[in-house]
């Protein structure tokens, strides 16, 4: 008796095919219907995850800072994010008169879409990947590059020279850190021999000492560091902090559009953690085969949430890096380390 | 250097332009003539046995006698030395008709803001101040010089009703 969801998915598949067949519609309708159901389920799950993560960030930061965080709304404030979302929905959407309306409107849409689209290839559990394309990790890196466009759109569309400068600086930071990010996973790709996400999970054997984090510790460290920079979180959030001092790319956004940027940041955090779990921590596999009675998605969520916690931990512990140190760090430290990692991994794969 | 030694040295070098004020305080208090003010300040910083290199503050004061006539202004400098441990108070008398004084921002750069403050609160002019501007008051302030005695007040000011006995 297992709590795995494969049985549930098969049952849904049979029901949908049954309905489509009984209505006499072509097979393609069945595929489309299933796809829409999967997308709906995924988006539903991600929205709940985003709300959960925002609550969790507030609690984690509060406890690190020796205070309590939200306590009044529900048990330990768990409905706080829902309350905040409802509040934001009621806010007036103010757009500056001189702003470029189309660009201003589409920027948060783009960032949110890119963020959601990347989840299509994340293996949430055994048989729980929305679609297992054979270039999974390449697809993820391609889609997450969209955030750069949306930041530039946000900066440009506000028609505010400081918003534009803030947007450009953030974009420069993200582009710089994409290089070590992509290179750091090359070691894992060399060891696994595949780009498919399910392939990564299955090539890390069922024992935790076979997970890729041990031979690829440097790759993991580079990945987490570069990913924190990609997310614009402290210690790499100077462009965001300078919004406090001067202006930033999202200064002209209010209400739900601001919430979109905010939610996208948290979902991106979860995505980064999910990818790191898949590549380095064995995905949905338990540390020892004996522990397989705990369903695979629980393992996956547990590992991802632990990495999310680590990323949050960084934010509340370290001060910020200055912009030139930030760029210098990406190009002069992380990039050579990533190359060294690839070289040594290739050597190791060849020898063993 | 003690108070007497400082006073003796200053009288020796600048005798006719300064006037010692007798007080029971341990620091020398003295007046210097308006024309010799900047030169005297330079001398105070450059003389190695005096070495008053720290300008503690520079402020104005407005004196009126009982009838409201006979206005006099003072500019008061409090100086200290970081090498020797002495302090002194230097004052310059200014007549009400000619409220201009040389600037000491070339000698102590901290005097910049103090002179701006004296300019806008008392109306004492420092013609060669490097960048005169408004400091504490509004940019469009034209209701007089607030720190002067008998300032007529801001037209929007509503005073407290005088119901209680005086605060003597």
């Amino acid at each position: 008796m297992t709590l795995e969801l494969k049985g549930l998915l098969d049952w849904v598949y049979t029901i949908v095919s049954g309905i489509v067949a009984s209505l006499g519609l072509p097979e393609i309708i069945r595929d489309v219907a299933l796809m829409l159901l999967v997308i709906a389920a995924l988006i539903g799950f991600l929205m709940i995850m985003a709300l959960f993560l925002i609550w969790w960030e507030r609690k984690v930061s509060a406890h690190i800072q020796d205070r309590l965080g939200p306590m009044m709304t529900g048990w330990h404030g768990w409905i706080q994010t829902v309350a905040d979302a409802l509040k934001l929905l009621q806010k007036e959407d103010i757009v500056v008169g001189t702003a470029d309306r189309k660009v201003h409107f589409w920027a948060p849409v783009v960032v949110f879409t890119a963020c959601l689209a990347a989840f299509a290839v994340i293996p949430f559990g055994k048989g729980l990947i929305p679609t297992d394309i054979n270039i999974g990790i390449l697809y993820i890196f391609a889609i997450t590059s969209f955030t750069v466009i949306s930041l530039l759109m946000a900066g440009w569309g506000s028609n505010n020279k400081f918003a534009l400068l803030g947007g450009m600086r953030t974009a420069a930071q993200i582009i710089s850190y994409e290089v070590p990010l992509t290179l750091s996973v090359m070691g894992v790709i060399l060891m696994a021999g595949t780009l498919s996400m399910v392939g990564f999970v299955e090539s890390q054997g069922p024992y935790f000492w076979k997970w890729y984090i041990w031979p690829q510790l440097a790759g993991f460290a580079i990945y987490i560091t570069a990913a924190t920079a990609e997310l614009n979180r402290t210690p790499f959030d100077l462009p965001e902090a300078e919004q406090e001092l001067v202006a930033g790319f999202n200064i002209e956004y209010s209400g739900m559009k601001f919430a979109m940027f905010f939610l996208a940041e948290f979902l991106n955090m979860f995505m980064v953690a999910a990818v790191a779990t898949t590549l380095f921590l064995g995905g949905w596999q338990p540390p020892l085969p004996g522990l397989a009675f705990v369903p695979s998605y629980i393992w996956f969520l547990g590992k991802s949430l632990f990495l999310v916690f680590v990323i949050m931990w960084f934010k509340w512990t370290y001060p910020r890096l200055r912009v030139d140190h930030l760029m210098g760090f990406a190009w002069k430290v992380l990039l050579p380390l990533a190359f060294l990692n690839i070289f040594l991994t290739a050597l190791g794969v060849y020898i063993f | 250097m003690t108070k007497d030694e400082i006073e003796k040295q200053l009288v020796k070098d600048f005798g006719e332009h300064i006037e010692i004020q007798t007080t029971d305080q341990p620091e020398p208090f003295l007046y210097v003539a308006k024309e010799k003010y900047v030169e005297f300040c330079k001398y105070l910083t450059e003389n190695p046995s005096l070495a008053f290199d720290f300008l503690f503050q520079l402020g104005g004061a407005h004196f009126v006698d009982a009838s409201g006539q006979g206005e006099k202004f003072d500019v008061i400098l409090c100086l200290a030395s970081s090498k020797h441990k002495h302090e002194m108070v230097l004052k310059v008398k200014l007549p009400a008709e000619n409220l201009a004084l040389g600037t000491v921002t070339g000698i102590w750069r901290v005097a910049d803001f103090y002179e701006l403050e004296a300019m806008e609160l008392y109306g004492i002019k420092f013609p060669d101040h490097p960048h005169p501007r408004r400091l504490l008051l509004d940019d469009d302030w034209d209701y007089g010089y607030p720190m002067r005695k008998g300032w007529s007040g801001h037209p929007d000011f509503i005073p407290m009703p005088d119901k209680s006995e005086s605060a003597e």
Partner: protein
Amino acid sequence: MSTLEIEKTQAQDEFIINVGPQHPSTHGVLRLILRMKGEFIKDLKPDVGFLHRAIEKIAENRTYAQFMPFTDRIDYCASMPCNLAWVTAVEKLAKIEVPERAQYLRVIMTELNRIASHLIWLGTMSLDLGAFTPFLYAFRERERILDLFEMTCGQRLTYNYMRIGGVSQEPPQEFYPKCKEFTQYFRKKVDDYEALLTYNPIFLSRTKDVAILPIDVGLNYGASGPTLRASGHDWDLRKIHPYSSYDKFDFKAPLGTKGDVWDRYIVRIQEMRQCCNIVDQAVEGLPEGPIKAKVPAVFKPKGEVFARIEAPRGEMGYYIIADGTTKPYRVKIRTASFAHVQLLKYLAVDWKIADLVAIFGSLDIVLPEVDR
């Protein structure tokens, strides 16, 4: 609002940025107008005066005792030293002998308030640099000091505790053991803050060798207190011209070596430890006796006086002209932040705007002191 003619020397590729007067962190209402060339600051003009309350003019209409609550508000983060400056000046003017017990109590309160003021500085500086957590830790410790003050005089921020001739009330009996408890607890907490910040590579990269202040330039700009001691100038008024029995305590005035932002940070951290030492010694050696000298009810001093003390931010002093009536004729208040605001332009030019927050934090400027 005017840009104060900073654009008079603007070149083609420079632009003007306005910082403030509203800030997200607790800097107070200061407006800085910067002329920037790319990332670098080429010129800086502080626009002050948002918090001007004309305290000097008010002083001319209050008696010497009635002016005491106003001194609290000159620097409300450190209001015991502000009280102390006023009473020191008036007692020097009227030659009043303060009983020893009152002097020791004044020292205890001033040093506790120095710790509280440095905690605010620590919190806001690390918040500006992006380390969010020391801010809350510092305020947690500060709550304990404020509890001590509330026990003594009923107030948490502006105490009005000292009187001309002594202090206003005797602290309750449980004050002294709680003081000792606090200093023991606090020394460990300073180690925590140091572990989080002092040798953190990110913090070092933000603060080491940034905005070095040479001693002679600092003196010329009127810098004093920890800002100048960080450059290596051994000048602490508590040791050079001891007042209120500071000469009876054994403490060090920490010195820096270079005068960069890191030195200004480390000097204040070490000062917090030294304050604990002073508080311990004062609590232990507290003599018996009256807490206030006899001062005539109708107090009419005459003369002029210039007195200064070591406030947490630098040197604070008064110049009082007394004309023999119950109210002073002229009171000129000198605060450390007024001089340090002028230092900001010298230090920040040719650094990046991200360094501006570090430099501003290290100077520990509070706006009520600047504007009075």
